[in-house]
């Protein structure tokens, strides 16, 4: 890999308006999971603003009286950490043995670089070291605890992949270590697709970094490696996943995410999500930022219970398929009024209203 002489500083576009939203509290950091969730519901301004401002959403939800059980079992954490520690022990000896099969790594020339422990104070330094290492690297290597950045909704966020593996030909591969099992070559599809989206976030961040270093972004492979326990044991198994589809979705949705800075600027003065404030004031601020609630939020966003409460009575709260089947009208009441002919449909509602009326007649006739 060629060397670059000039290393541009990462852009610092901290937005004072967004930072003010948080009050005196430290900013929560983004990770691949939150970005994946953000792109899962790109139309939600509330989530975009809160995430970009680094607001502690679990504490906010608790403060306004809509806490959410997003806890993780310590058994699951212990097993996940244990599996990762086992793979990375002795300079990644075990991990290398499974990667060698899928990536054709050369045994004797694999270097291992640990860029340091997870710590807020060292973010900038670790990112700098990651850049240096990626700019200089030659030959096969494993990079542990790297720190990447990605621009999300006009804001630079830090990302920490599990590991980046270099292959001999200079192609970089993102390695994701997950503790869910692959049984007989099959794993839980929801977990695999979540892992693939997360890996795609890292691939994209890595490609952007290489571009900024003057390299060909295609050096980062779209084939990521997923390392999971095999069957019912702790024996690792590596599989290669093609994340081109996830990458395309991610890129499209990141460009679609409205610039949060513009959004923040358009909000009225006096809005604050400082968790030290009284609940009524926080709720009033939340109502100023439009949310787009869908039942899927319940598994992806810590504020979902509040938004669900707010969306009660809307067809969206019943889920996208129900909303579509009800002709896309906004509220349940409106749909029922169309069905009972208590409301005159607009021109574009006419067809849906006729169907709803027929459905209501059929149900009433049978029950």
């Amino acid at each position, binding site marked *: 890999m060629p060397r670059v002489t000039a290393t541009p500083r990462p852009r610092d576009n901290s937005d004072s308006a967004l930072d003010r939203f948080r009050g005196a509290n430290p900013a929560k950091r983004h990770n691949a999971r939150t970005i994946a969730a953000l792109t899962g519901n790109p139309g939600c301004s509330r989530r975009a603003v809160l995430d970009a401002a680094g607001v502690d959403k679990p504490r906010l939800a608790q403060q306004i009286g809509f806490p959410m059980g997003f806890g993780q079992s310590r058994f699951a954490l212990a097993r996940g950490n244990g599996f990762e520690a086992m793979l990375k022990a002795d300079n990644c000896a075990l991990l290398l043995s499974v990667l060698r099969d899928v990536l054709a790594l050369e045994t004797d020339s694999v270097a291992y670089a640990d860029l340091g422990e997870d710590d807020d104070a060292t973010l900038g330094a670790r990112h700098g070291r990651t850049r240096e290492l990626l700019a200089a690297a030659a030959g096969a290597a494993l990079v542990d605890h790297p720190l990447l950045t990605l621009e999300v909704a006009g804001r630079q966020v830090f990302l920490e992949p599990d590991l980046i593996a270099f292959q001999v030909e200079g192609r970089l591969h993102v390695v994701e270590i997950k503790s869910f099992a692959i049984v007989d070559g099959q794993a839980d599809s929801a977990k695999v697709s979540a892992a693939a989206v997360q890996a795609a976030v890292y691939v994209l961040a890595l490609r952007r970094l290489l571009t900024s270093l003057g390299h060909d972004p295609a050096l980062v492979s779209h084939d990521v490696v997923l390392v999971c326990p095999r069957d*019912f044991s702790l024996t690792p198994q590596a599989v290669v996943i093609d994340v081109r589809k996830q990458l395309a979705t991610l890129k499209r949705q990141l460009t679609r995410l409205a610039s949060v800075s513009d959004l923040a600027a358009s909000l009225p003065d006096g809005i604050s999500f400082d968790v030290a404030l009284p609940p009524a004031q926080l709720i009033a601020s939340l109502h100023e930022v439009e949310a787009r609630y869908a039942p899927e939020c319940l598994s992806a966003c810590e504020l979902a219970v509040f938004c669900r409460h707010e969306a009660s009575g809307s067809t969206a709260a019943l*889920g996208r398929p129900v909303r579509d089947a009800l002709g896309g009208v906004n509220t349940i009441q409106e749909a*029922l009024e169309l069905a009972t002919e208590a409301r005159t449909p607009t021109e574009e509602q006419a067809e849906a209203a006729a169907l709803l009326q027929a*459905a209501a007649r059929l*149900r009433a006739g049978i029950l």
Partner: protein
Amino acid sequence: MSTLTALARAQAFAAARAQPLATVRHLHLHERPMVLIPYAMAGEANAPLAAMLGTDRKNPDLLVVAQPRNRDDRFAFAASLAEAIVPYVDSFTALTEAVAVDRGRDVRYRFTDAPQLWVPNSGGVEFLRLFGRSTRFRSTEGEYAVPAAVPLLGRWLTFFANTAEVPGSSLLLNVVQAMSLHWATGQSSAEDAQLAALMAWIAPPAGVSVFEAAAAAENPALLPPAGPATDPAFDNHVLAPLLSVAEPDIAELTAVLREQLLPTWNLMWQAIDLLRALPVGSRVAGRWDGDRDAYSAFYQHLAEGGAPQPRRDGAVAAAARLSRLENAAARYAVQRAFDDPLVMAEYRLAGAAFEGAVTLAKADRIDDSGKRPVLRPRIMVVTAEPVRMEPGATLTSPARPSQKATIISVTPVLPGDEAKTEVLLELSGGMGRKLVAEPGSVPEVGERLLFTTLSEAYRPGGAFPEPDQTPWTHGGPPVSDSAADDEAGVNGSAELEPAALSGA
């Protein structure tokens, strides 16, 4: 989501009560079902933590794994689970009945009853499938020997998990799916997946509103999850301290787990009661016959020392299984519609069925254009419903399933304030063998009838090659290494097919 179901959800929200999606019960409900709630250890690959099970609602058994991360304790749990499940599963083999096959030229036997397992949700089914996978290949001798009941349990659990994929099968049922089939709630399907939240809409506790009940159902401190996943707070604050010692206190462990599982146990029996109160659909018994066939065949397979189900089906076995599942799905959809006017309403709304009154009937019409004269009565049906069918289409009426009605013409009736359609139909079959129709076999003027393009006609299964004739498009014949597996695949999948059972 159909408009009809979506409307039912909207109505449920407005009424603050679940609304019916069915007028009859579409599943077989056993007189002595076994209810089973598996609980798994978080993070581990299908490591059991506990199971509450039994056939007596007042007296559930609770099996607990002393130390879930200990392999020996896990297999001790599997052995005690086998002791509880296998005798139940084996207890339906006392009586057999003869079934005519091959157009009455032969006869085969099947058991007159079969077991029925209930788990809370699809996660429970998946847990049983994986638990079956982790136990069915266990060896009963050698270094890691397990009791003989363990691999036997594994084969039965795999059998049950496989039948749960067959639409309309009632051998292994999950409460969430069964209840969602019969009722629509005013919340999203994501929330319905939680048994307690679903039941809050269908049967809220006395004196509590649906919305209060649904909110309480989401608080794991009030209503613990239905499993197999545990409540993380329970893991961190109750379970972890108990399991932190080398030899956990079994009595205390049992007590805290009983407290977690009992609410779900009660909800499941309550759900079964609600389903039992529904009148049963008339085609349910026929599907249960198929379940008894499958049970009898697999029992026989085990009795003959058959191999465990393979890890993965070979190409031919997989294709045959897929074809059977597709056939079962199509048959199940048609049977539900024929059994239940509320399900048929979906097809009426979509234009695949219509109801109307007979305005003209010529019961003695003879078609003598062919070699022999045949009885072909014609009737005219007028309907106000949309008819999206073409002349030449063959229709059936659930009232006369053995009779075919061919559309001769579809004519809109122009005058009048409502859009109506006249459909001219020619009838064949189901009228006796003479040139004069049996009384009552031809609809009379004034009768209201429903006609649909759905058909209960027999669908022949696909023809598949022998495994050693697997075409190259499907990987070619299995190589010798995996040949044993593939052969087992054919045997293993026989569980879904009625097979000869020598008179027991």
